[in-house]
């Protein structure tokens, strides 16, 4: 049974990745599961300088999902390279560094600095966090700007460059094309969907940022549809994500066009979720006599 996949030059032993922002810097979870079994770990989004994020309340549970407005709190690229990366190098898995900047120059510089560190195997560019201010959101919603910022990061790194797309757009296909034109080797589809919740007793928003990003099974059908649209629009590999809780959910994304999947909110519910999802994928392959997971990608029968 072949589970290995190639995500735009990033070779993984299996298609299960942990999603950025849901798995810390990886090491937090080493007591709960064998990190060597995961295809890749995507670490919490990194910026040039440490970021303190938003004030509390930062999360709120909604039906089959959760809203978050963490605000990209992180320890910064330097601290990550110095303190966390040496720990992660001990594991036989691939490390994807998720990163963001406030300007095109910052994106390029972050990409360059992460590329120079030993033990990072690919970069995932966050141009789509719903918790940033209006000007920043344009990177993920204006195709011309998307192409420009991706091109700048592309020039700054030799590593496989994955661009994480926002679902908060009119046409995910247009955004996908823009990212690929800019030089993306692969696409992560999707980031969280903008949402909000209000405490009706006090009339105050549940999140200090007022709006946040919705994740979890609630967004799965939307994410699946966007993976399907993206698959039809571009040739690069897609990492499908959005509410994947089980092996069956992961298979659904692969059939829709994903070459790999990322497990996000499920990690909060079960720290060993990614391992169980991998087992579920293998069970499905055995049951359907699929020898190579790559043959299932985009295998939807319409």
């Amino acid at each position: 049974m072949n589970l290995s996949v190639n995500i735009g030059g990033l070779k993984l032993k299996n298609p299960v990745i942990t999603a950025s922002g849901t798995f810390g810097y990886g090491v937090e979870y080493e007591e709960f599961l064998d990190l060597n079994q995961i295809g890749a770990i995507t670490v919490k989004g990194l910026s040039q300088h440490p970021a303190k994020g938003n004030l509390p309340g930062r999360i709120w549970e909604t039906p089959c999902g959760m809203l978050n407005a963490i605000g990209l709190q992180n320890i910064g690229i330097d601290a990550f390279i110095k303190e966390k990366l040496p720990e992660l190098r001990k594991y036989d898995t691939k490390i994807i560094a998720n990163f963001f900047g406030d300007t095109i120059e910052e994106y390029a510089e972050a990409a360059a600095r992460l590329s120079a560190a030993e033990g990072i195997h690919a970069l995932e560019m966050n141009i789509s966090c719903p918790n940033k201010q209006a000007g920043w959101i344009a990177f993920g919603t204006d195709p011309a700007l998307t192409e420009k910022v991706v091109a700048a990061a592309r020039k700054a790194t030799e590593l496989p460059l994955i661009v994480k797309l926002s679902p908060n757009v009119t046409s995910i296909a247009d955004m996908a094309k823009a990212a690929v034109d800019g030089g993306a080797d692969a696409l992560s589809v999707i980031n969280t969907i903008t949402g909000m919740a209000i405490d009706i007793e006090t009339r105050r928003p549940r999140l200090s940022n007022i709006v946040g990003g919705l994740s979890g099974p609630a967004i799965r059908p939307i994410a699946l549809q966007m993976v399907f649209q993206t698959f039809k629009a571009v040739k690069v590999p897609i990492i499908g994500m959005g509410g994947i809780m089980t092996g069956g959910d992961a298979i659904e994304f692969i059939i829709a066009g994903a070459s790999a999947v990322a497990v996000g909110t499920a990690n909060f519910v079960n720290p060993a979720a990614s391992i169980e999802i991998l087992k579920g994928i293998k069970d499905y392959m055995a049951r359907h006599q699929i020898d190579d997971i790559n043959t299932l990608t985009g295998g939807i029968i319409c």
Partner: protein
Amino acid sequence: MNRLFTADIVTNEQLDNRYFALQVTPNVAICETLAGQFFMLKSGEFGEYTDPLLLRPFSLASFIHPDDTYPNGLLMFLIDAVGKGTNILKRLPVGTRLNIIGPLGRGFPPVADDERLLIAAGGIGIASVLGLNKMYHGVPLFYGVRSRGQMIECTNSNIQVASDDGSIGDKGSVLALLERHISQLRQSYSGKIKIYACGPHGMYKAMFKMNLDADVYVALETPMACGVGTCLGCAVETTSGLQMVCKDGPVFNLKDIIWGG
């Protein structure tokens, strides 16, 4: 030993229309627990029940050590059924299997021999300090409840109770009793006094404003997703920046927290 395990419900007892006591026995040996630590609980097969989605954090009320009947001991939680997740837990029958992560967070710090400890609890906050009550036998316990019906029975010969409606103990705030006790104690004792407290947010804010002549440690409660410090959702503002209730707490020094308006 793993902090991710399953446990089966042994008893699930309704205490009043909101409070219930849940006892579960783990299916594996669990890590050592400290008073003030918490566990995240959820019922059902993983991936099957997605609403509510997240586990719910609860203070450990007591741990009964392993014996012949329960080789991995018994964990007891006292829970206030405030929302969807807790109301589902309240209705679960004996034998139901739960998914659990824990023990999590940092408990109440140790008390030195030359320090005097006082325990304060408001409402369901009693859950978090029951372990202390057992560990520091005979230490004064100040316990505030809405009314007699909400009072959880606890063995302590040195207990002082206050209730909002006066149906048990003094009518009014338990903090008045606590303050009076401290001023009496101060007539004969000038050393360090520690207060370990668990109760509603309003109680902590009141304690902060009272500027009590003691080191006060409180157990905080916030919405939480992961419980292990990765989601960064349970942030709280402290004098040294944002900290995570799940990992840096849930027990904090009262004066380190920025209480706001």
